[in-house]
């Protein structure tokens, strides 16, 4: 049985697409109303999403899956791809995050982008982005997902480079696009390999038949898919684009680089969990890369001075947490962290935008300080986001991060767990440093700059997001019983038999309640141990807060210490020289290869061949031109000779 609204679910991506089309073709004539139109489209999409969500909620857990085919996209032999969509708990959840947070960000952008000369185009791109993301999360087969995936890459390119007059912005856009392409090659190969092994790209069949996949094939597919995910979700070694992407307008950072685009990789790996579960090697790779990213990004964030860059590295670090959770089979916890992170990180990005808006586009936190007095609303909401991310008990990040740590501990990865604790400490430190330097302490702003609060259209989305960031955690307060986890469980579980948990500690296992049919994710760490684990995790975050408080509020002379930078400080400040290494490895080597191709292969070999051929023909013609005497009678002799020769030939043949 399917509700009528499920048949109309195509409206969810179609509304933003319509908005983008209208704004692209007629936007010039309606620049004042552009933001309004785009926001209305997003809100409409969100309403349809909410309707679907409640309809789904009213159904029994086992039946919460609906697929519809709009039309057959490609049909060639056994290869068939339809433009279809899938409604299940995971995709609906992503729809709600994308359209919900997206609507608020659109609303905020009306205030932030006011007066920009290309305002309508900005909103067209934003809508286009939302459409791409919705296509990605609603797709019911790998190819349509890939189409959405690439469209997301395109619209992020357009949005990051929105202020393309600034060389830094256009360079950052290109960097993001190219870095993503590297991962996408892996994703595309993974899709092809899936077709080779399953004969179809349809999720329903691929996921249900994944258990029959051999370990080798599963490892290859999973690692290729993960390459794509690492590109989109900015994991090592493809993390370099995200911090640079902060060159785009701040709402773009909030939408793309906090709430939606970067979560596409997490979503994809979560969606393909049954394939990953077949390959312990791939799971290990995901977990270790996640941990390494979480640690590295947190460490880099310690020393960055640009408010948006700190948040960008924070995003990279939090995404690392999500991949760590995916890698240990705590898929449900990873998706939960994705959910809470979308709220608090969007909140903080928009808060950072509000700070910049109110203080003359200043982004350097060493030149801020004391802004809490000038912009109380921004400061108050930002503080809520800060509490959420460092895991102050009761706020959303507390629950989700705690569940990730518990999942890591329960899977037996003690080293991973310790690493994650260190990353949690790091989160506490860099976020507190950011908040203390921005909103507390004495003002370090230059003379004559007076900060002010942003307009209501920007403050309201902040307030709404703050409510979500504070409260969203209660939806999934515990893994076993939390409503959130029970809701997504049918989409993310790879195994349903608790008896095998001991053999497969890294597979998201669920139990089905025989009486109600409810699916519960299996909690790995229950009972008294949970309290201890939670306390340790919270203590790590709060310790980070304390350390930052001592350094930046407690009279520690941090400004004077900078005059004598240590090696560690320099490494962190310069992002471990990853950009420089890439610059050398890829740009430098690439340039050398190009120079060889241009000056040796092209100029010597190819041009050389052509010109030598020309010289040869020229030399031949010096001989050949002698035939052209200019004497008509010579030619006549030639004609006569020809006729005689032909005659002789004819006579000879006739014999």
């Amino acid at each position, binding site marked *: 049985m399917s509700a009528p609204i499920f048949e109309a679910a195509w409206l969810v991506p179609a509304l933003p697409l319509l908005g983008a089309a209208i704004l692209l073709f007629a936007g010039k004539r309606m620049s004042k109303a552009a933001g309004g139109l785009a926001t209305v489209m997003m809100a409409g999409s969100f309403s349809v999403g909410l309707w679907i969500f409640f309809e789904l909620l009213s159904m029994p857990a086992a039946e919460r899956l609906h697929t519809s085919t709009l039309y057959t996209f490609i049909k060639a032999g056994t290869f068939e791809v339809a433009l279809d969509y899938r409604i299940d708990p995971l995709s609906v959840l992503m729809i709600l995050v994308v359209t919900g947070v997206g609507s608020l960000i659109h609303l905020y952008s009306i205030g932030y982008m006011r007066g920009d000369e290309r305002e309508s185009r900005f909103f067209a791109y934003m809508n286009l982005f939302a459409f791409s993301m919705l296509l990605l999360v609603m797709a019911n087969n790998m190819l349509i997902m890939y189409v959405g995936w690439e469209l997301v890459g395109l619209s992020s390119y357009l949005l990051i480079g929105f202020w393309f007059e600034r060389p830094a912005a256009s360079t950052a856009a290109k960097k993001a696009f190219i870095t993503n392409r590297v991962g996408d090659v892996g994703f595309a190969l993974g899709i092809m390999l899936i077709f080779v092994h399953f004969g179809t790209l349809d999720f329903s069949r691929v996921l249900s038949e994944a258990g029959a996949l051999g370990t080798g094939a599963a490892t290859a597919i999973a690692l290729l898919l993960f390459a794509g995910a690492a590109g989109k979700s900015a994991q090592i070694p493809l993390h370099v684009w995200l911090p640079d992407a902060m060159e785009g307008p701040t709402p773009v950072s909030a939408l793309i680089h906090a709430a939606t685009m970067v979560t596409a990789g997490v979503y994809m790996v979560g969606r393909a969990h049954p394939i990953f579960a077949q390959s312990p090697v791939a799971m290990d790779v995901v977990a270790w890369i996640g941990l390494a990213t979480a640690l590295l990004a947190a460490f880099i964030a310690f020393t960055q001075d640009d408010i948006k860059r700190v948040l960008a590295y924070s995003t990279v670090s939090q995404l690392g947490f999500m991949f760590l959770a995916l890698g240990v089979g705590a898929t449900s916890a990873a998706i939960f962290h994705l959910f809470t992170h979308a709220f608090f990180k969007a909140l903080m990005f928009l808060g950072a935008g509000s700070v910049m808006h109110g203080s003359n586009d200043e982004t350097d936190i060493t030149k801020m300080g004391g802004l809490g007095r000038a912009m109380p609303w921004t400061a108050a909401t930002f503080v809520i986001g800060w509490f959420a991310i460092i895991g102050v008990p009761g706020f959303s990040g507390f629950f989700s991060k705690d569940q990730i740590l518990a999942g890591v501990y329960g899977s037996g990865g003690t080293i991973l767990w310790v690493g994650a604790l260190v990353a949690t400490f790091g989160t506490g430190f860099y976020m507190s440093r950011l908040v203390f330097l921005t909103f507390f302490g004495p003002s370090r702003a230059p003379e004559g700059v007076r900060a002010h609060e942003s307009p209501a259209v920007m403050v309201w989305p902040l307030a709404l997001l703050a409510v979500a960031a504070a409260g969203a955690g209660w939806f999934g307060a515990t893994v076993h019983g939390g409503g959130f986890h029970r809701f997504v469980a049918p989409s993310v579980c790879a195994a349903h038999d608790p008896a095998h948990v001991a053999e497969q500690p890294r597979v998201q296992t669920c139990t089905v309640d025989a009486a109600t049919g409810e699916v519960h994710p299996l909690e790995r760490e229950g009972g008294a141990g949970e309290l201890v684990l939670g306390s340790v995790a919270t203590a790590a975050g709060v310790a980070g807060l304390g350390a930052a408080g001592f350094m930046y509020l407690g009279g520690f002379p941090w400004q004077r210490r900078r005059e004598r930078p240590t090696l560690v400080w320099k490494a962190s400040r310069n992002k471990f020289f990853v950009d420089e290494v890439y610059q050398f490895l890829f740009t430098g080597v690439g340039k050398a290869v190009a120079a060889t191709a241009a000056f040796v292969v092209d100029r010597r070999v190819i041009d050389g061949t052509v010109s030598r051929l020309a010289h040869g023909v020229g030399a031949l013609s010096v001989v050949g*031109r002698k035939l*052209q*005497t*200019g*004497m*008509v*009678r010579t030619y*006549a*002799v030639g004609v*006569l000779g020809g006729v005689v020769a032909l005659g002789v030939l004819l006579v000879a043949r006739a014999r």
Partner: protein
Amino acid sequence: MILPAQYLALAGLLFATGVVGVLARRNAIVMFMSIELMLNAVNLTLVTFARMHGNLDGQVLAFFVMIVAAAEAVVGLALIVSIFRRTKSVSVDDAGELRG
């Protein structure tokens, strides 16, 4: 009664005269006349063969040759006049500007 062989011998003689005329003379008009001579020698053989075989094919072909020769004479003479205007000479050896 003249034998066909005698006609053919005459035609061969005329043709040879034409060839020598084209190859040996420098005056364009004389060369032109020699070409006409060759054409008409061929016409003579065609008519002779037509008589030998008792059908009209050769005679019809001879008419075609005459028509083409007439057209050729128009173009050829026009060319010679125009060359004469340029070089004040009808010697073909003076018109060698396309020499390689």
